[in-house]
């Protein structure tokens, strides 16, 4: 009995020390260098990476990186390395809210594209740096779906729907929208658009409503409209974040997701599908209008 008590006591003491040590570790850092963390936001912003072919930025991983950077006292600033055309509304808002809450300087660096939901995220940072040819803005909301009721009719397929609730079936691909439903759904889109405009305008301290048509802007246009702060590249973003952090030298640390087997397969299948699609497209194409860089 005494022996069992002694064993339990030893276990409790060790567990207690481990727990206390783990709790006291928050905020401790031995690093003598100043670090700037780069958090990549590349791809479509999605709620979760569910299927094999779905690959994108989820709020979970971006937020976990931001929290990690925030807790690490050696990290003096954060650069959001953005190359995204946006994506789902809620995940974009979630990431933007997290960016806003960070107490350390955050600079958004827009590479090729930082539009729509990705611009929402960028707007939440302290400063935005983009190249003169970067695509940004596109403050708009879009929603759509395939409706194939006519096709079904052609094939003699009839859609029977039993619903409780007048609008439960609104947006079904098997039947046409009524005017009333169309108006209702459009109103929802308008509400989201309004929230989007308000958020980005508040974040930037500029009324962006006149430019919130869904149209994108190049960096050199965006700077004149107050949508971004500086024209430049990674070096400029680093210079700005160092200035905001009040430091002269800093080491850049890139937070990157390790590629899993699923990522590799998904990338392979994605690229293959794209090439097949391009091949089919090419075979149909005549001398069409081209814009290439």
């Amino acid at each position, binding site marked *: 009995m005494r022996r069992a008590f002694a064993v339990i006591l030893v276990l409790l003491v060790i567990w207690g020390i*481990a727990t206390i040590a783990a709790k006291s570790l928050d905020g401790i850092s031995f690093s003598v260098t100043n670090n700037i963390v780069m958090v990549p936001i590349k791809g479509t912003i999605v709620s979760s990476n569910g299927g094999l072919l779905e690959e994108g930025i989820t709020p979970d991983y971006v937020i976990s990186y931001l929290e990690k950077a925030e807790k690490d006292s050696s990290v003096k600033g954060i650069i959001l390395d953005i190359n995204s055309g946006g994506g789902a509304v809620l995940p974009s808002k979630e990431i933007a809210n997290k960016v806003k809450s960070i107490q350390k300087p955050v600079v958004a660096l827009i590479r090729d594209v930082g539009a729509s939901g990705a611009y929402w995220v960028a707007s939440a940072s302290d400063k935005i740096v983009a190249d003169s040819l970067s695509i940004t803005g596109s403050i708009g909301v879009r929603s759509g779906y395939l409706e194939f009721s006519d096709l079904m009719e052609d094939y003699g397929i009839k859609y029977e729907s039993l619903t409780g609730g007048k609008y439960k079936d609104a947006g079904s691909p098997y039947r046409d929208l009524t005017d009333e439903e169309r108006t209702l759904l459009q109103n929802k889109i308008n509400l989201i658009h309004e929230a989007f405009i308000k958020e980005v305008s508040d974040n930037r301290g500029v009324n962006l409503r006149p430019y919130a048509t869904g149209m994108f802007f190049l960096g050199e246009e965006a700077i004149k409209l107050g949508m971004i702060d500086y024209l430049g590249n990674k070096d400029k973003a680093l210079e700005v974040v160092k200035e905001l952090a009040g430091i002269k030298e800093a080491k850049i640390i890139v937070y990157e997701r390790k590629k899993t087997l699923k990522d590799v397969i998904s990338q392979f299948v994605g690229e293959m599908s794209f090439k097949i699609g391009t091949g089919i497209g090419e075979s149909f194409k005549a001398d069409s209008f081209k814009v290439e860089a």
Partner: protein
Amino acid sequence: MSKKRGVIARLWKRILAYFIDIMIIGVIVVYPFEKYFGKVNGLSMINSQMFIAGLVIAILTIFYWAILEYSMRQSIGKMVSGIYVNAAKNSKFWPFVLRNLTKINSLFLSVDVLYMLFTKQHQRYFEKLSSTEVLEVPRKK
């Protein structure tokens, strides 16, 4: 080590004991630090917090074995497996720390265990250094 010799512990018992202890260590020592290792998926950076967490885990892991083996001559895994550590009667604490030093790293432990294959007493190298050995608990008649 004590002159009163018994039967050398069988290998499977030692392995069983090790895995039981590892599971206990996982719960009481590693789990409290889980957020420093598990939360940030795929973060390819070892920062100072991870380093300190690793150091504390290593120290507490050694102490788990050292304290129990010093005070009772058995860790929980060894109690379950029916084996014990044989050491000199007035042995101090440090040999028990020494014999468990390699358990913080699987590579060190593998090399240490490899030594067992080449000795008559089937001792790990660090057991030899600390003048300890693992024996079967004698059956009561």
